[in-house]
């Protein structure tokens, strides 16, 4: 692989890992709010979370550009007050990947949470645990395999994210050129098929490794919990 390709690989890993790590807690909070709460506007939040699933990634990228660009309401604020800008940067690539992965992760996390017997949390609460404590000490660890699988799903989706990324942060080698962007680039060139194949193989291997890792640890955790 060429140095540029290696760079894309490394960048992809960084983007996907960062996006997953940042999204997981957000997904957890959202999943909780959606699974447990009963409040007005819940349906709206749910819809908002799911938008990236329903809309073409390019639209999401465009919306991010509108929102987080220097002229965008959020972007301007962040730029002026925190000096943070997203467009053309690693940060933006992470944001795009995170937004696209969010609905998948929220869904996985929510299912994992709902699969845990609420009776156990009740038991914990009668033993002196607050709602939060009971959640953290009982439900969360029991949902761990599901969370893990949600995280891997998010990681995988982040690895593959293309449309939102290129629209939001374009293709800046070393900053925003992740594997999919490199693949796309190679694929669109008349003589890029060899490079594209190489990069696709690389992506596939990466994803397989993530899945295998997830399965292995899922099995370990599940065995440890006595689930089949």
């Amino acid at each position, binding site marked *: 692989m060429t140095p540029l390709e290696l760079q894309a690989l490394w960048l992809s890993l960084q983007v996907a890992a960062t996006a997953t790590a940042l999204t997981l807690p957000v997904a957890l909070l959202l999943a909780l709010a959606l699974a447990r709460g009963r409040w007005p506007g819940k349906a709206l939040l749910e819809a908002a979370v799911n938008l990236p699933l329903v809309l073409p990634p390019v639209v999401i990228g465009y919306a991010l550009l509108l929102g987080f660009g220097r002229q965008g309401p959020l972007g301007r604020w962040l730029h002026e007050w925190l000096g943070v800008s997203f467009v053309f940067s690693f940060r933006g690539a992470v944001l795009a990947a995170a937004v696209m992965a969010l609905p998948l992760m929220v869904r996985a996390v929510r299912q994992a949470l709902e699969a845990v017997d609420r*009776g156990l949390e009740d038991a914990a609460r*009668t033993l002196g645990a607050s709602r939060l404590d009971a959640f953290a000490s009982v439900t969360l660890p029991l949902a761990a395999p599901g969370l893990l699988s949600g995280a891997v799903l998010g990681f995988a989706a982040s690895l593959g994210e293309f449309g939102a990324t290129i629209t939001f942060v374009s293709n800046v080698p070393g900053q925003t050129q992740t594997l999919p962007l490199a693949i796309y680039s190679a694929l669109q060139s008349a003589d890029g098929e060899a490079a594209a194949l190489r990069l696709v193989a690389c992506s596939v291997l990466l994803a397989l490794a993530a899945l295998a890792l997830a399965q292995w640890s899922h099995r370990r955790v599940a065995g440890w919990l006595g689930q089949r």
Partner: protein
Amino acid sequence: MSLLIDVSVARGDTGVTARIDVPPQGITALIGRSGAGKSTLLQAAAGLLRPVTGRVAIDGSTLFDAASGTDLAPGARRLGVVFQDGRLFPHRDVRANLLYGAKRAPASAAGPALDEVVALLGLAPLLARRPHQLSGGERQRVALGRALLGKPRALLMDEPLASLDPPRRQELLGYLAALPARLNLPILYVTHQMDEVMRLADRVVLLADGRVAAEGPALELLSDLTLGPLVGRFEAGSVLAGSVAEQLGDWQLTTVMVAGQRVTVPQVAAAPGAAVRLRIRARDVALQREVLASSASNQLAGTVLRVIEREAPYAAVELALGPGGAPGERLWALVTQRSVQALAVAPGQPMVASFKAVAVEGRAAAVHTETESSSS
């Protein structure tokens, strides 16, 4: 500390409306048919089900009050709960399960130590296991230990022994029976098993169709054979109140004075003069016209109060042992209607009731006497 549960809880189409006072000492048994609402009430007390209206309070401090909007979180109530289905935490080993509540209880609160509970419930070989490696019975023992270690202000148990084998059940019954004296907190005990009620309960609340159908000191309620259909014919019996006369250490027996008469029972750990409680099932009591020489060494003279012949071939005969026929001095006998005729049993008739020493369950009752008299 005394636990008051006075609530109305909606449940499906129906609901449960009941007021239960769980006195600060001793065990209050909550009995009733399956579906009567026992578990529902218990969950409402623990804060796991929100009553529509009513009040839950311990020692005067309100845990729930629909009127004032008070609704303490279950964790803040500090009521130990043992669930029907164990509810152990699958991801923690037995030791960690046991310590879950202990770690969250105020350090100052009183309660048994880990070692004590482990020894008592025979949990030592299980400590490093996970719940899925336990059989049903083992699981329930751990659940019981876990609740005890949480240093609760009151204990709520929902058929905790339902899945234990008889010897282990006996063991646990012994421990449970000793709890009130050790812990000095209200205990609400839901069960289907009359032997558990007999053995453990100081007060009994009978729930039927979501209402309290009967309630009172175990002494009276368990002796009320008219409740037979609800509690089961063969489990019904009497509770006699007496005081230790003599300890026959060699024989592991104790003699007890009841209504001026002497009764021999398997050893009760209490000093001479101490108040004790004797439970005798009606089916274990035989009637005769006079005192006879038999291994049925307990033969108490009395006067027939009433004869109930509800369902052939059975007849329930109530005797007053003392002149007043006070609660604690009345004895039920379950005999055949033919015997009633053969022996000419009739109200006013003097009669001798005989039962074997081994048929009696005795227990020290000193602590609770005042409580009961004040609450009844």
